[in-house]
């Protein structure tokens, strides 16, 4: 029997009037399409969604959706997204950016977002280059990569985004590619539904400055689904093991999904507020408290 997957919203309901200025063939078009599809499946109206980004090609993404958006400051998508989620817990909060935004300029914010575990979804469009500024070496560029800032080849080892977040204890970690938009869309939907910090690394090729072997056609040929490899997504150790192949093979799917999600920062804060509210002095007596001291 044909099973209806109908929801109240269609992907086009999340598409804004603003036209993307990305280079034709950019991987980010597929990521955007996957986000539209995931949001339609989630079924929450655009006005209940907030999309925060940093700076870079991929950070333009909130403007291309009908959700509330903030194309903010370089590397600062996560602190703003966390602040928003604490202040407005009823919103569905997404954060997005590139690998430079997330793992270089904003690299220091990632571990803190992970350990606080607020219920936000962080989507990194990892193209292994600084595309917006014309193709410099980025934190995830492969060793030996030739760019305008490494004409003789990079001497540095790349950051491994998957190991990075897994090691800090992220409760949901996945990787996708726009070479498989339905798979990526399902992954983003699952990440959004996960109750806690969820991280999706998308290997989104830069069509202008990326290498041939990083393009979507190459992804289609080399990608392997973790599900097909018998991967157990409830095991952090297995996830850490698999994540080590980042940069040498393209594995897609959920690396780790905590089977017992820890409480989110928001829920702990609200619990603390409730427990303290009984002891709290009335507002009009605050000055008295100072005077007593």
């Amino acid at each position, binding site marked *: 029997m044909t099973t*209806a997957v109908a929801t109240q919203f269609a*992907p086009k309901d999340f598409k804004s009037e603003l036209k993307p200025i*990305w280079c*034709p063939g950019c991987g980010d078009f*597929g990521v955007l*399409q996957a986000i539209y599809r995931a949001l*339609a499946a989630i079924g929450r109206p655009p006005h209940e969604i907030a999309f925060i980004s940093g700076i870079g090609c991929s950070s333009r993404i909130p403007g291309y959706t009908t959700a509330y958006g903030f194309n903010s400051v370089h590397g600062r998508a996560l602190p703003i997204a966390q602040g928003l989620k604490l202040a407005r817990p009823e919103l569905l909060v997404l954060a997005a950016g590139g690998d430079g935004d997330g793992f270089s300029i904003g690299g220091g914010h990632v571990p803190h977002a992970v350990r606080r575990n607020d219920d936000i979804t962080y989507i990194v469009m990892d193209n292994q280059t600084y595309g917006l500024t014309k193709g410099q070496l980025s934190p995830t560029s492969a060793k030996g990569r030739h760019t305008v800032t490494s004409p003789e080849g990079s001497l540095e080892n790349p950051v491994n985004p998957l190991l990075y977040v897994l090691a800090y204890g992220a409760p949901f970690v996945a990787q996708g590619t726009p070479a498989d938009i339905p798979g990526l869309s399902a992954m983003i939907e699952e990440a959004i539904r996960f109750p806690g910090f969820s991280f999706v690394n998308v290997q989104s090729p830069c069509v*202008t400055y990326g290498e041939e072997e990083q393009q979507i056609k190459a992804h289609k040929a080399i990608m392997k689904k973790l599900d097909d490899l018998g991967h157990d997504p409830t095991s952090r150790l297995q996830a850490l093991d698999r994540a080590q192949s980042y940069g040498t093979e393209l594995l897609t799917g959920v690396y780790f999904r905590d089977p017992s999600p820890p409480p989110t920062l928001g829920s702990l804060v609200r619990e603390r507020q409730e427990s303290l509210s009984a002891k709290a002095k009335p507002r009009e007596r605050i000055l008295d408290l100072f005077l007593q001291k």
Partner: protein
Amino acid sequence: MSSTRGIDFATLTLKDALDLAVFIEEEACERYGEFADQMEMHDTQDAARFFRYMVENEEKHRSELAERRRELFGDAPTAVSRAMIFDVEAPEYDEARAFMTLREALNAAMRSEEKAHAFFVAALPRIKDASVRELFEELCAEEVEHKRLVQVEIDKAPPDPKIASKEFADEPVGE
């Protein structure tokens, strides 16, 4: 690569088959629209005009199918959704290229028509309902005709320049 999710062709009704066909045309129409926007954004006018022409074609097919659905089944609720199909007739995102020539745009459209034709051919043996089979055979034949029309345009298109745009053009800058 096209994909479907949750469609059981063996039990597909004519109403749902028509709705799927509408979604397939709608998706292709939207994608060609996105490609036309991209080409216009990057001042690639020949390809942009062709993609805009494809938008009109796909929209025409979509509205004809939607009208037929309305005539036969009125506003009866659908059991299918856009989430069930992906890239059946729509060109894949990485088909678009900055500074693509008219010939390259036509070749991208040809690959999409071939993909759609392959989809209907693969579905046919799984269909049990005679009216759905008839519809899919009709859609299959239409794809063959579209391929022929695109081929006519390819034959008329000027040859690509001997030097590829990536050899001389600067990187694309959206405006």
